[in-house]
């Protein structure tokens, strides 16, 4: 499929050259294909928002090139904006306008907008249309922000931490909406620090640390980079030394070991136990989760 977002050698620097400045993004390469959900993960300060702001065309790259639908989002802002929707990390709304007035102002400024009522209904805010923005809860404000991002029926959608501050139900509704938009053909780049969100939504993801991508791929590929883990309890009187596996962590009769090949190791272990008529207790075998990967990446940084 077509490449909708293409990032080559992106660097972004705040402040002056030398000691006084700060490199927030240090050489990023990635691309997002049409109809794909791509998630940028990372701890706070990893450079996610600094990256997304360049993709949104709010700031020029310090170095490198960024293309959205084949165009430079900063220099060719007018051409790109017609096809993009942006949800910033903090929505900026005048507090004394109502929800409907805010949405109407936005819709009227777009070339081809959804009707206001439709946009508000998408995020389940239709019943709050006449309420002033300052009276909205944090979650409702996030949803209003999402409604505006969707107002122009964008082909490329940037969502910067779209579900921060949402309750679990609203988060779920937002996920369904994102999946529905993807199914309708939109290309979506989102940042999040909810790993469950990335696991649920992302076709591909990249984990950032200190302005660089340290791991990228499908959720499956990314988690495959870490070993799986097997845990069980040996029956009393069986010496852990006779186990068929190396490198196990032994705590009394409780055993834990890591393996790059879960199926083979688990089969070996179970066959070994059957042959000796041993009953292993509390068997727990699982692949690495995205959370394990994320924590391992964060751990390396220290």
């Amino acid at each position: 499929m077509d490449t909708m977002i293409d990032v080559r050698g992106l660097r972004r620097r705040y402040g002056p050259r030398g000691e006084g400045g700060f490199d927030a993004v240090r050489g990023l390469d990635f691309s997002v294909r049409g109809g794909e959900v791509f998630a940028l993960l990372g701890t706070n300060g990893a450079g996610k928002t600094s990256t997304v702001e360049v993709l949104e065309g709010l700031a020029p790259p310090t170095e490198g090139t960024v293309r959205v639908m084949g165009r430079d989002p900063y220099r060719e802002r007018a051409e790109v904006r017609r096809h993009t929707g942006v949800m910033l990390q903090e929505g900026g709304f005048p507090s004394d306008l109502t929800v409907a007035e805010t949405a109407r102002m936005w819709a009227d400024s777009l070339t081809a907008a959804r009707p206001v009522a439709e946009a508000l209904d998408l995020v389940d805010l239709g019943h709050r249309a006449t309420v002033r923005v300052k009276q909205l809860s944090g979650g409702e404000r996030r949803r209003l922000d999402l409604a505006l991002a969707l107002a122009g029926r964008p082909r490329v959608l940037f969502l910067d931490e779209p579900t921060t501050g949402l309750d679990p139900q609203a988060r779920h509704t937002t996920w369904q909406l994102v999946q529905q938009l993807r199914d309708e053909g939109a290309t979506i780049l989102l940042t999040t620090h909810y790993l469950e969100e990335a696991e649920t939504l992302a076709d591909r993801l990249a984990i950032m640390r200190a302005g660089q991508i340290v791991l990228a791929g499908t959720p499956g590929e990314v988690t495959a980079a870490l070993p799986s883990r097997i845990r069980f309890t040996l029956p009393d009187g069986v010496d852990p030394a006779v186990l068929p596996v190396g490198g196990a962590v032994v705590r009394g009769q409780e055993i834990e070991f890591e393996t790059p090949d879960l199926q083979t190791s688990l089969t070996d272990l179970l066959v070994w136990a059957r042959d000796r008529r041993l009953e292993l207790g509390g068997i727990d075998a699982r692949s690495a989760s995205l959370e394990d990967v994320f924590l391992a990446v964060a751990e390396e940084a220290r």
Partner: protein
Amino acid sequence: MSVTGAEGATKSGGLWSVLGLPSPSAWRRMRALARAELTLLLRNRTAVFVSLAMPVLMMGATSSTVGELDLEGTGFSAGEVVLTGGLGIVLVLVIYTGLIPTYVARREERTLKRLRTGELTDGEILVGSAAPAATLALAQCVILVACGVLAFDVSAPRSLPLLLVGIVLGFVMLTALAAATAAFTKTVESAQITSMPLLMVSLVGSGLMVPLEVMPDAMAAVCRVFPVTSLTELMRDGWLGGLDGTERLRALVVAVAWTAFAVFAVRRWFRWEPRH
């Protein structure tokens, strides 16, 4: 609007921008923003009251000072000085000091950043946000001219085009100066301080309250380079006449130069989001 309609609008945008005018779609975008800003202004009773009452109060003060001046030799009556100066007072108070807090507030609450993620261009955002203040100011200018002609025995404008040139240049220059000042204003509250220098210089030294003609020549010459002086001169000339060709040209050059400087300052220093 259909997609083809949109493409058409882009193409005609080229023609409009060649003429230096906003394209129809630019107008549509600015109208959407102006409408929201007008709603906000009408909900802020204090701001409306200040915008309407301050110029009247300042003109009251002017009329008492002018009463003590010897206007002989200026060629103007007291009423003419107060009313034509009133036009400048309206522009400075409503547009310049009125817009600084608007721009600062929209920046700090991240509305400007939000707007920049949409189709509005940077210039459209600044102009659209200024539209309600410009409307208020224009209405007051019309009222002033009407009052002068109908109630205070001042002549009808000698040259309406010249008067309008002065007013429109004033809108552009003071809007840009307000945005430039907003760049150096951290909070809405501190706008009262950052707006002070230009406000004071204009009230005292730009012929708004005291005509330059009663000043010593050297002082008047200095005052003629102040930004608002050029506007006062053009508007007064448009309404009452009195400038010769050279003086008129000089006033125009000063006004355009300050406008260009202010636009440059905005492009160079304006910030679209709060400091982190």
